[in-house]
């Protein structure tokens, strides 16, 4: 349980890191600290607080939070390696550690190479994956996951829900990639009005920035359709499954907030706080969709999905009924 709470802390810290990264981009502070890994020649953790002025406040704070999250994930991977009996969960920890290290290196390279778009976009995109990994670890170390959500009856193995949820999560990630491209290519205000585009449904003229911006708007409609379809399916077919309808309801709430923030980002001329909230809310939509997806496929993980060093379940070779979350044992909606 402590490991799970710690994993939740790591996931929340990752969200804070994404918000801090959003502030760096939104304030144009990415190059306010020209060197890396040092800060104006100081070792990162000894940089004087009174020198954190202007854009340095955002960039250096982002680096401090990133380092902290890096250490938290290192400890998480180590902890999982020591106590976790499920090999795939241990591997998840190592992958998260590798991802956060790669993320740090990408962050350094993008500073030293003056923010080249591909590196900056890769940095923004990998951040989302790190958040997905830490959230997944928090989820699969939870008592409810280990118990197979069996308190309310066998976990459903709804193939339609699984497919819709997987596709929707993929679409959300794709939409975030387009958003990252839009942010880092300075296309956030390429279409200056909302909800119309230059007063029309379709932009009357095009260039690369307008195309990226418009793709993000179209992407929002596609993602909205996917999320509404997923949530609608859950509300209709799995009303009694708290572990499914809660993230579904949260998804619809986050979606509303996210669309509002997207509109306000344009209408406010990219206010840096609104813009950064849009980034972190997008990340929250992604991980919420991921949680829903993982919970929808929980029944397909088999009995190994819930085993841990301190809560192992032995399935006899014959005779006894398998646990309710063993594949094929759950109800199909």
């Amino acid at each position, binding site marked *: 349980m402590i490991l799970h709470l710690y994993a939740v802390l790591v996931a929340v810290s990752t969200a804070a890191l994404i918000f801090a990264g959003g502030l760096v981009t939104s304030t*144009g502070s990415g190059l306010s600290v020209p060197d890396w890994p040092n800060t104006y020649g100081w070792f990162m953790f000894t940089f004087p607080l009174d020198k954190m002025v202007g854009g340095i406040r955002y960039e250096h704070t982002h680096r401090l939070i990133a380092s902290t999250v890096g250490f938290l994930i290192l400890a998480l991977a180590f902890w999982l390696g020591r106590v976790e009996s499920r090999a795939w969960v241990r591997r998840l920890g190592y992958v998260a550690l590798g991802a956060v290290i790669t993320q740090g290196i990408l962050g350094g390279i993008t500073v030293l190479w003056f923010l080249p778009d591909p590196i900056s976009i890769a940095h923004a995109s990998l951040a989302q994956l790190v958040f997905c990994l830490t959230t997944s670890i928090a989820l699969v170390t939870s008592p409810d996951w280990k118990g197979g959500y069996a308190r309310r009856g066998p976990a459903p193995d709804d193939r339609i829900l699984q497919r819709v949820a997987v596709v929707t999560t993929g679409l959300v990630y794709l939409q975030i990639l387009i958003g990252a491209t839009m942010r880092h290519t300075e296309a956030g205000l390429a279409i200056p009005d909302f909800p119309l585009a230059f007063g029309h449904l379709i932009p009357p003229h095009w260039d690369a920035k307008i195309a990226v911006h418009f793709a993000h708007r179209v992407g929002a409609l596609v993602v909205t359709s996917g999320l509404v379809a997923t949530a609608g399916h859950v509300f209709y077919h799995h009303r009694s499954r708290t572990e499914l309808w809660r993230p579904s309801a949260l998804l619809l709430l986050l979606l509303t907030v996210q669309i509002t923030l997207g509109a306000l980002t344009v209408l406010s001329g990219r206010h840096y706080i609104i813009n950064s909230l849009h980034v972190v809310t997008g990340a929250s939509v992604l991980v919420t969709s991921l949680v829903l997806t993982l919970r929808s496929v929980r029944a397909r993980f088999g009995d190994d999905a819930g085993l841990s060093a301190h809560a192992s379940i032995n399935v006899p070779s014959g005779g006894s009924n398998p646990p309710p979350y063993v594949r094929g044992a759950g109800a199909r909606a």
Partner: protein
Amino acid sequence: MNAYLRSSLVLLALILAGLGAACGGGSQQQATAPAAPVTNPVDPATAGSLKGSITLAGTPPAAQTINRRSDPYCEQQGEARTQTFTVSDGGLQNVFIYVKDGLGNLKFPVPTTPVVLDQHGCTYVPRVFGIRAGQSLEILNSDETLHNIHALPANNREFNRGQALKGLKHTHVFTTAEVMVPFKCDVHNWMNAWVGVLDHPFYAVSGTGGAFEIQGLPPGTYTIEAWHEKLGTQTQMVTIGPKEAKDLSFTFKL
């Protein structure tokens, strides 16, 4: 077989003819090769000058007070206002005027004295200036706060250097002519400057009243360009005779 031989011979003849034409072209190119560059070509006895002013048609937006609260030191330096349109006596300041074309293959010695760009009062001084390709640029931090100097050229090497302490100096040499190279400070997002990098000394920046003067021009016909950070560029053709002082004015419209 005969047909094959004939074809081969025709092909060989075509190749030889092509090679001959290529060789002939080469000798023709040699015949029209440009003359060797003339170094230090200005004759003071015949050199002319260009004098004029930059005016602004229309009412510029009022200068805005810059919010510098993000750095207490900068805030303590007093009120700072936007300098995009600095107008005095009807003239527009901070316009870069230079000879864009007409100097041919003339080469001019590069000054050994550096040009200084100062970060003073959390502002770049000067805001617009010129420098020669190959001439040293000294970037100085006169403030008791941190600055980063981030140059964003298109044809020269980009650089971004931090200056954490007062008195620190960074020297840079631009190798290629480029008009204009922007500078910005990512710590203080209101700090901007522009430098025109040229391979000749014929440039000026409009000052009080929008006045400018370019001296020591060899007689000839030139394309003169005026650049403003917001209003873009304008060009004019001008012919300068021996010892002639030519008047030239530009009007930027809002």
